[in-house]
């Protein structure tokens, strides 16, 4: 392996250039010597499945955002729990109690969103909490 920093990556550069050249050569050749007969169906954008109707940018319920936020909260909790579990032995009882406090606070948050009706997707809650 050569010492020169550039020389060490030269094969990669050559690879990139070759790949680029080959790809453009194929596209260019088919464009040059290919036989073209455009029709309406051929020019339409390719899409499988349903026929697209309307705009994708519609209004949808704010509840989706709430659920997404709750997912993040519990996801982060889980992410914290894994490294904690690995080093629990070294942390001794201190680590145990600290995590208990942390999980307790997350549970308080869960209690809060539950009581606020975030998990309730029925119409009743939004009518009861008319202000929201």
């Amino acid at each position, binding site marked *: 392996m050569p010492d020169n920093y550039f020389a060490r990556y030269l094969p990669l550069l050559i690879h990139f250039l070759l790949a680029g050249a080959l790809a453009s050569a194929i596209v260019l050749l088919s464009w040059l010597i290919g036989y073209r007969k455009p029709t309406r169906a051929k020019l339409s954008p390719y899409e499988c499945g349903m026929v697209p109707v309307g705009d994708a940018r519609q209004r949808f319920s704010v509840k989706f955002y709430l659920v997404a936020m709750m997912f993040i909260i519990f996801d982060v909790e889980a992410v914290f729990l894994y490294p904690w579990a690995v080093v629990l032995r*070294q942390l001794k009882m201190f680590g145990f109690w600290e995590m208990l406090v942390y999980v307790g606070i997350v549970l308080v948050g869960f*209690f809060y969103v539950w*009581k606020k009706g975030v998990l309730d997707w029925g119409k009743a809650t939004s009518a009861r909490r008319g*202000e929201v």
Partner: protein
Amino acid sequence: MNGAAQVTPQAVEYIRILPEIVLTIFGIIIMMLDPLMDERRSQRTLGAVGLVGALAAIVATLYQSQYPGVGFWGMVNVDSFSVFFHFLVTAVTAVVILTSYEYMEVQQIRAGEYYGLILFGAVGMCLMSSAVELVLIFIALEISSISTYILAGFRRRAAISSESSVKYFLLGSFATAFFLYGVALMFGATGSTSIAVIGQVLASGQPPVLAYVGIALMFVGLGFKVAAAPFHVWTPDVYEGAPAPIVGFMSTAPKAAVFAVLLRILFEAHAPGRLWLIWVVAALSMTLGNIGALVQDNVKRLLAYSSIAHAGYLLVAFAALPANGIPAAMFYTASYAAMNVGAFAVVSHLASAGERYVTMEDYAGLGRRSPLLAATLTIFLLSLIGIPATGGFFAKFYVFSAALQANLVGLVIIGVLNSAVGAYYYLRVIVVMYMREARQEVPVSPVPLGLGVALAISAVATIYLGVLPGRVLEYATRSAGDLLR
């Protein structure tokens, strides 16, 4: 301290974060009580819990001051400096909660989270003033910022309030990213995120270029949070839309905390290239803030521009020598907090439902209809000008004399000229209140007890700092000694 071997913190280390623990517990109590109670009647109870929490945090701060020292593997440091800012933040929190009592009822905002978020924000601000480790400072900054982003949008029915919240959130996160990038570069330059270690490394030899860049980026992030000049553009819009008591809160408590962080980073870490950076920002903030305020008709916008100008005056102290500059800056944050919270308390009382009455015109004839309220607002405005016998006078006096001792004559001249410009728009409010008849009578409701107490505390603090500044200044000087040791 051998950080690796010692795993379990001692009990005394928990005392060193006691105010934060107390505030968190009360915040959690509010969040748990809120969904359980009928939201039409819960406001008074939850506000009372918040108030008790803030007062308990003040007590905890006083108790904590007996146990100075480092805690949690060199992450927090309780010294007289941090105790000063803890006291300031918790006191502001208590006064703001007192102000909010009436405001929430008048605006018909029924949300207990309001008080919880104020307490959680205060946790971040307290932690900022005692943190001596850049990553913890970042987390504290985020705790405080996120709470204030939400609080800014609490008038949900008003589009302007949502606009304020979104603007504050977007620009604030951007600024936090700058700060974080600065922290990362600082870590790259010195190999540590502890301010004490960074200070040793930077003082030991020629600081690397990376350190300059790191300091500059951190300064951009923090400059945004205190609304200093090139980063001030968000301030008028956010302050105009946010609920008035919250503006009083976020223009004082987080600012004080961020100034504490800046003092620690710039002086304790011996930041290189400090002088000219501060010079430019201070001069720009003073000038742009005052000129912007001249043409405002909305009192909240006027006070927003005034807060930009005051951030500029405060930064003058940062350009001075540490021994004079630190106490001057600390005194300024305290007196600015007293007068600004008071001024916004008056604004929030007069604003009435939907914050209808916040223009200059609505204040006409206030001196006749409600003499006591007008007199109180006059005290705060005179203090903001810097008239003797108010806190604002000694604040400016100490800052400018500290700058003179550092031979910054140019900056002092700019500052004094700006004070003269500033006098115009503050006096304009006073003139309107006393000497102009209202074209249309704006109703002024009687001042309720909570707001009365809040106004009394702010007014007494403003005058106390203006008549007997000695004790506070002496304390600040001692804290500066602690900080520089």
